């Protein structure tokens, strides 16, 4: 009985937390002008992540006649409305619906990409990418290698909404990046914000390697920023240091960055200085930036929503341990989802929230 009451309580506090994240806490950033080279930095519009994605696709399609976009129901904007208006602007030939067949969509996309079209395919939810797993892992990722670069599908980008959304349960919440991170030849990207989303998606679409672009769907509406109107790219394969600090390095990507920032602020009140790093590109990942940071702080915490065992945090942890062994003051910690299927009713317990990260910071610093 105690547990049930406790659980009800926790449920209530979770609601408060989400409310505070959505409404009170302002995560908006200004573009990092050292990295994002803008011609007219003053021209910008406040948009959410969904619109930023749309904006990026629009820009890509406008600047590249060979680009096409397809997927289940994308013609009407897709279930999240990320492609609204593209049909009207670019017509049926370039924006079209596919039947419901993920393996077919992925294979078809590889074909259009390797025959010259800049291809943006959508998988309706990351949870439905698995029927396409073979095409992505065996065909797309290895095309360049196995053909001695006779063919490649570098102009392929697969967009897919991922991660928790508050009530998505088993089949609308998963973060499957680690499955693909085991596949050389793929590029995996996950943005944390609208500015990032636009620049990273444009780079992904124009990159010469096949990219899976994971979009944290919980951010589609709640994340709003002043996003530059113009065409800009953010380089792939480069992590970004969001806050500099001296005591412990926090590494993550996607929506998890918000939890890391919140935890870092809690720790700051205790006098702990956190360096917060967003990987942005999960594969190939920027180990150098993390290494540099950890050599300075001596401590590392890696965090993501996906289950802990064999999650991408495992890779970060082990490579940094190899590179920074003599600099480490404490064991590297991973703050991740539990090793369970993504739950319905227990979502708030499952998620590695800022309190769990904060607890890990304290443990690491006091080791």
């Amino acid at each position: 009985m105690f547990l049930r009451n406790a659980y009800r309580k926790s449920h209530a506090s979770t609601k408060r937390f989400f409310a505070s994240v959505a409404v009170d806490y302002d995560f908006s950033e200004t573009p990092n002008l050292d990295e994002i080279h803008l011609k007219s930095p003053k021209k910008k519009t406040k948009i959410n992540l969904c619109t930023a994605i749309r904006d990026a696709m629009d820009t890509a399609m406008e600047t590249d006649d060979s680009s096409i976009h397809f997927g289940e129901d994308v013609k009407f904007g897709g279930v999240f409305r990320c492609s609204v208006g593209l049909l009207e602007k670019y017509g049926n030939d370039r924006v079209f619906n596919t039947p419901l067949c993920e393996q077919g969509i992925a294979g078809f996309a590889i074909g259009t990409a390797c025959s010259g079209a800049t291809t943006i395919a959508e998988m309706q939810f990351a949870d439905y990418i698995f029927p396409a797993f073979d095409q992505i892992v065996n065909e797309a990722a290895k095309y360049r290698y196995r053909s001695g670069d006779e063919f490649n599908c570098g102009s392929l980008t697969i967009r897919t909404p991922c991660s928790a959304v508050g009530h998505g349960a088993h089949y609308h919440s998963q973060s499957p990046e680690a499955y693909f991170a085991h596949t050389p030849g793929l590029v995996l990207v996950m943005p944390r914000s609208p500015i990032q989303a636009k620049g990273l998606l444009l780079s992904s679409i124009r990159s010469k390697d096949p990219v899976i672009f994971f979009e944290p769907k919980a951010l589609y509406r709640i994340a709003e920023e002043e996003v530059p109107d113009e065409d800009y790219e953010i380089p792939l394969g480069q992590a970004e240091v969001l806050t500099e600090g001296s005591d412990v390095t926090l590494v993550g990507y996607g929506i998890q960055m918000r939890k890391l920032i919140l935890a870092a602020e809690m720790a700051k009140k205790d006098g702990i200085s956190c360096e917060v790093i967003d990987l942005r590109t999960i594969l190939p990942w920027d180990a150098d930036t993390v290494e540099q940071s950890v050599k300075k702080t001596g401590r590392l915490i890696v965090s993501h929503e996906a289950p802990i065992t064999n999650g991408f945090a495992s890779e970060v942890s082990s490579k940094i341990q190899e590179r920074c062994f003599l600099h480490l003051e404490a064991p590297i910690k991973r703050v991740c989802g539990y090793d369970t299927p993504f739950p319905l009713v227990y979502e708030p317990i499952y998620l590695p929230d800022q309190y769990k990260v904060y607890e890990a910071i304290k443990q690491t610093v006091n080791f």
Partner: protein
Amino acid sequence: MLITSSLTRRNISRVKPQSFSFFSSSIEVELPKFKVHRLEESELPTKATTTKSELLNYYKDMALMRRVEIVSDMLYKNKWIRGFCHLYDGQESITVGMEAALTMEDHIINAYRDHTTAMGRGHTSYQIIAEMMQRSTGSSKGKGGSMHYYSSKNNFYGGNGIVGAQVPVGTGVAFGIKYEGKKQVCVSMYGDGAANQGQIYEAANMAGLWKLPIIYTCENNKYAMGTSVERHAHNTDFYKRGDLIPGIRCEANNVFAVRELYKWGKKYCTDGKGPLFFELQTYRYHGHSMSDPGITYRTREEVTEYRKTQDPILLVKKWILEHDIATEKYLKEIDKEIRARIDEEVEQIKNDPMPAPEELMTEIYEGQETEKPYIRNVDMISSINKNFE
């Protein structure tokens, strides 16, 4: 054996039949024509017989099923139900007709639009709604939510969220039936949109090769999310898509057409003749799921027109009135009774507990129930098995 009538007895027992003679004459109903593929039309039934009590039971069952969906819709809008929720109203004649032809020894596997299918397989309205409201009194202890209904007792394999995935699974189940020499059939259900998934044809090939007792059942409700069949399927004759496997198209708003078709199909399969492809033409009233208003890709008029002219419950009602089985007033009373009953249930469910947090970690592997893992809760105080303090 009619699970449906026991379902009715359980749920709306207070409505007593009035002064009708229930068991008198049987009633004959003419069936709409089936369309066939690699079969002779003459092989198929053209008439069904029913009784007054049976018709009334069908009415009660379907009215109950529909009410569950309407109430779920309201509960969703009031945020009592979370998650992704797909409603079945408009398609009830399929469950009722199919269950009238099958027994609980037969096997069913379905996709995610399955509240009604689960009721046909013995789940109560209480369990169905409680599951959606994430209560431990729900069908899957509140751990699954909408979509996730199963019954090992009544051979119902779910409840599958991944479009098309259930179809090969059903084929394996059919192999089990054949392997054990049982006189049973497996019904593997999928939508018109799902019909474009390759694995359905991989499975059908196996079933054809090994003559498995399986009925591939495509519920063609005209849309896959926002895409109409003409826009997503090259061959919209879903009953022909088994290629060498015989197929039949059925106007499935007619509960008797469905029933007679499955009686016929079960005999065909248990006679060892191999698999079948059925296409059940139907219509969903609600949008695809709760986030879809359901009128951006089809007109309001289209929905209204179907409701007015082809509604499966109205059809049963028409027969009831035509044969003087009950008055309109009496049927209204049944509706009222169902309404009150479900409202009562919902109020009770609201006070039912959520599943205990420990269950986050159970039922992943065999035997995990005995372990006591540490689970860090949102607020530290309420964490489970905490090894600190």
